């Protein structure tokens, strides 16, 4: 046995191993190419939701919050409505024939989801721990703060939370809102009405002196009556995370809504025109003091979709 032959034998053994391993790898690759994706796909999630096969999607929106959700000439308009349209279209419900907007008052948002009269609620719905016991939330799709709006005649008199506590001023807010609880925490006595719009009407008629709510809602009324009101920046210290309300028994639908919000978020982050940015620019944008961006949605599931292979840049 000379060294040359042992080397040649070694080489032929290495060749055999290489051929065998290549064949094994090729076989593994072949099996892999026929496997189902490990992650569930958007289409699979769709099949799990309660809306699958439903001919119409019913979305609860506000009809009396200018810029957010408003009924103007029989048409639903506003930031919430545009977000609702985007989510509906992503879920396969596009056009008036397939999408039904249901008017939902602030206090009816949870009962209407529980009672099944709507499939989703997009109506300045703050995500709070208490509410999460009753409904699920996808989002946030907007972060806002609590503010106070006063008529121009009082703009120099009501500047602080201390001023609000003055019994001389009647502070109004909508029932079942986070604002109501927050004011109570600061020992501000409030007059509780059904909608923020009622407060604004009341102030214009002289019944109340101030209204407190989310900045986004107040900005809407300021846009309607720019000469009569002013928003006062007060340090309430809480931020309101607005989310999309989903029935608590439908986690698949919640996941899908969160997934589509995330899709828009990623588009906006990469500098493209996202559906969120378009909705914001068309409604709230010009009326808010500070420029806002879409917040990152929370608890977004990883789902596989058809456009996953598209280039990232």
């Amino acid at each position, binding site marked *: 046995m000379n060294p040359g032959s042992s080397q040649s034998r070694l080489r032929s053994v290495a*060749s055999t191993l290489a051929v065998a391993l290549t064949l094994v*790898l090729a076989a593994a690759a*072949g099996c*892999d190419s026929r496997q189902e994706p490990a992650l569930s796909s*958007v289409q699979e999630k*769709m099949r799990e939701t309660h809306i699958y096969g439903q001919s119409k999607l019913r979305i609860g929106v506000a009809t009396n919050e200018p810029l957010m959700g408003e009924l103007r000439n029989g048409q639903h308009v506003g930031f919430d409505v545009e977000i609702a349209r985007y989510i509906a279209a992503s879920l*396969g419900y596009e056009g008036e024939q397939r999408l039904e907007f249901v008017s939902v008052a602030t206090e009816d948002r949870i009962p209407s989801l529980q009672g099944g009269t709507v499939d989703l609620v997009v109506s300045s719905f703050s995500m709070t721990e208490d509410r999460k016991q009753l409904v699920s939330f996808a989002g946030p799709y907007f972060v806002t703060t609590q503010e106070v709006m006063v008529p121009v005649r009082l703009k120099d008199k009501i500047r602080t939370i201390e001023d609000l506590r003055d019994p001389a001023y009647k502070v109004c807010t909508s029932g079942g809102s986070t604002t109501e609880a927050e004011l109570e925490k600061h020992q501000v006595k409030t007059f509780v009405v059904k909608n923020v719009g009622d407060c604004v009407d009341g102030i214009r008629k002289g019944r109340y002196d101030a209204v407190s709510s989310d900045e986004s809602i107040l900005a809407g009324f300021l846009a309607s009556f720019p000469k009569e009101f002013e928003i006062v920046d007060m340090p309430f210290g809480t931020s309101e995370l607005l989310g999309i309300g989903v029935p608590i028994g439908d986690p698949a639908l919640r996941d899908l809504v969160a997934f589509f919000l995330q899709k828009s978020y990623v588009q906006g982050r990469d500098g493209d025109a996202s559906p969120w940015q378009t909705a914001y620019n068309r409604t709230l944008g010009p009326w808010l003091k500070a420029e806002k961006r879409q917040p990152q949605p929370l608890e977004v599931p990883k789902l596989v979709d058809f456009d996953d292979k*598209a280039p990232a*840049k």
Partner: protein
Amino acid sequence: MSAAPTATSGDGPVPPPRTSVPAADSPTVDGTAAGAGGEVAWPAAVPVAEPAEPVVAEVEPGRVRWDPAERRARASQSFWTAVVGVPAIFSVLRLGVEAGGELQTTLLLVANVGPVNLLAGFLTTAARLLSTGLVAVFALGAVLAVSADRLPPGTRRRPLFARWADITPAWVVLASFLLALITWPLLYLPLLLPAFVAAFQLRPARLHERVVPRLLLIGALLAGYGWLMLPTMRDAMRQGDEWLVLALIVVPPLLALFIAGPLPGLVIRPLASVTEVAVLATLIWAAVPVITTPVLPLTVTTVGPESGPTEDVRGHVVTTDDVNMVILQERGGVRYVPVDLVRAQVLCPSEEELPRHQLRIHDFHVEDSLLEGMGRRVRPVHRIDAACRTPA
């Protein structure tokens, strides 16, 4: 270890070496009458088949058993028969499957799907399978051919793939590798490396005659490959359960260093038989999806009167004339929809196109082929229409 056993086994079943036109009664290796087709006049465009290893053939005359002209004729005949016949048969089979097995629906499709469309549609879906089969045969064939001298004495004939690799012109082999390069998913492309090295017998010794520069060259090549793949490998590690992907990226280039052969004599016969069966089985197994892939694109058509309820019909549009749009529904059955009831129509992706891995190689998705990846660069935004989400 020499060529003696094969060359001197003339008393066995292997016919003695022939150098000129054979006698009509001497059987060839596969038992057909020799000499047939030897006088065919060749058009200028038909390439001349070269034996894969002309040098070896000269040194070992015992391996040349056919007249070159006859061999060329046979190879060319079977090549063109396969090129024309296989797609035609597959296309007709696909139409039958597409029609849901219904005779009348099949006839409707036959009447409306043009042969060119059918062939083009077949090639777009079958190019991957076709190139895989060819690459496997040529790579295995070349390795077996170079090892054939080590076959134990008394062996009847050289392995089938080795004979195929011998008679195939180099341009066909190269073309199959090119086809594989542009149609295989990027993830599987590293496997093409050992296959290419095997098919063209590129031993590391070919890089440089001296050892040190040779090692440096190999190191540089591997480093370049590593630079290309490193971000993807990091992603795969982070995702945790992508071991196969990691193996597919890391192992093949290393195997390419050793794969060229020759193999030990003991292994050749079992390897040849096993791989022949395996390639055949794989082709059949992989042909099923090709037959069941739709011939026509999937659309959702919104149907309804001007003002009134609409309905979404999910299916493949067979044809449209002045009166009707004929839709082969996804769940089966043909719908004739009056043209003036058609409100909208969108193109939809099918669920088979969903990716299985969330990995990219320099922004090319690992499950895209080079062609698809380049296509996505030309049209980067792909919006799925809302109607495609609705149930069938």
